[in-house]
Structures are given as C-alpha cells and as structure tokens.
C-alpha cells in the first residue's frame, strides 16, 4: 500500500530547504539560498509556506547592523519530514 506524499514537502525547493534544515541546528536565509540555488523571491515565498504549516520557525533579527533571517526546523517539521521519507521508501521498496 503506497502512502500519500505530503504535498507541502513534495516540491523541489521546499524539500531542499527541509533537507538542509533537518541536519542543522539553524541556518540563515543566505545559506539556504546559496545551497538550494534558489532566487531570493522564490525562497521567501516557500519559507513562508513552510512557516505557515509550522514546519519551520523563522526569526527575523539582526547580525550587527545587518538584518538576518534565521530558520530552524520545528518538531512538527521533523515529524512531517520523517513521514515523507517513509512514504518515499514505500514507493521504492
């Protein structure tokens, strides 16, 4: 029986962001943009969607005088990611 894939995670950029954040304590916007290769605009939109679903926490602060947006995965996001990976496995097994 195939499990349904979470549509919020089954998208290239959102999955890339979640995969980066699952292995980190936290990462800032510039890091996520560089590693995912996304444009700033697209990344902002996708981060917003993940934050609305409470998969990630977004903290808009400052590093010195420069604005710095920091993201970290939430327990709900981690659980959703695990379910997503399990569902993928059910397809490949």
């Amino acid at each position, binding site marked *: 029986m195939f499990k349904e894939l979470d549509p919020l995670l089954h998208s290239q950029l959102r999955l890339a962001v979640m*995969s980066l954040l699952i*292995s*980190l304590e936290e990462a800032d916007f510039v890091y996520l943009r560089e*590693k*995912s290769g996304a444009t700033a605009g697209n990344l902002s939109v996708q981060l917003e969607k993940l934050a609305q679903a409470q998969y990630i926490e977004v903290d808009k602060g400052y590093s*010195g005088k420069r604005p710095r947006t920091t993201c970290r995965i939430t327990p709900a996001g981690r659980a959703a990611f695990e379910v997503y990976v399990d569902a993928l496995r059910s397809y490949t097994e």
Partner: protein
Amino acid sequence: MEEKNLSKNESLELIARMIKETRNSMERGGGNIYLLWGYLWLVVALTIYGLLLYTGDYRATWLWFAMPLVGYPVMYFMLKNRKRRATTFVEAVISKIWIVIGVCALLLSLFMFVNHNAFPIMFIMALLINAGVAMSGLVIKFKPTIIAGFVGILLSFSLLLIPGINQILVFAAFSVIMLIIPGHILNAASRKAIAAGLDATESSSKSNKVSNV
C-alpha cells in the same frame, strides 16, 4: 532552483544532496577560540607564577579571574564578527559542553573564597577542562584534540603529586598541550580543507590516517 514535479527518485536524490551540502560547513579559523583561551591561560598562569615567586603575595592568584573577565568578552566579539550562516548540531553540542564546563569552573573558583582548602583546585580544574577538550575532540572526530584531551586527563593527576607553586607551571603547560597545539592544527586543517572543498575533520583524518570514531 526551478519548481517542477519531482519523481520519487529525484526526491531521494535531492534529500541526499542537500544533507551532504551541510557537511561542508567547517569555517576558516575554527581553532581561534582554542587559541584565545590557550594563550590567555598561558600568559595568566605564567604571570601568577612569576608574581608568587618574586613577591610571595598569595593575592596574585586572584589574577585567575582575569581569564573569564578578558576571555568571555573577546570570545563574544570573535563569535559576533564571524560570518556564520549555519550552525550544525555538532557545533551546538560543543557549545553546550563548554557552557556547562564554564559554569562548573566558575562555581569551583568562587567556592575558593568560602574555603580555599576545600579541594585541590588545580587538579579539579585541569581534570574538568581536559574532559571538555576530550569530549569536544570526540564529537568533532578530530584526532589531535582527542589525544590532547586524554593526555591532559592523565597528566591532571600529576597535579596531586607536585607540591607548591610548581603546580602552576604544570597547569600552564596544559594550555599548550590542550588548547594551543590543537588550535593551530585545527586552523591548519580547516585552511587545507577549505582549499580542497572538504570538511576539515575529514581532511585531517585523511592526512593523519585516522578513522572516524
């Protein structure tokens, strides 16, 4: 990255690629914090030794408090100014290990004002800090730090055998073994790793023929 429909295999490949990306996070100058504390420790210890030797005034030992008073603000400044964009779990674990050790070291030092004969402070401090170095080394899988930590743990016991102010000389030597040498090796490894696009601990392990613990 363009949005497109992902196949199941593409999803798995993307997850693996992104997780791998997070491994190349060792930054240049990763050993600078070790060097800060190592050199500060060496200078303070030798100054106290010199003052005790030439003046005999025990109040020279109050200079130990120069370490946190100078070290923490400088460390805060160094951490604030580095261009860190992501924090790995390993870095978070190491930082928490040192917060706990820092709190214990501070409480042990303050208790000396209550009863300065309560415990052999040099031995306890050396054991505590060496344990921190060994734990950090094991967490980052960096052989020079693991060796320095465990050699330091072993040598800490020599402080129970050495009398008088000579203990301070041994204590000063710990800063070289535990912090200054590993700090320089870590910086050299991170320079080499960044040049080669590898993780520094990986690079060091390869050059030292060390397998990961």
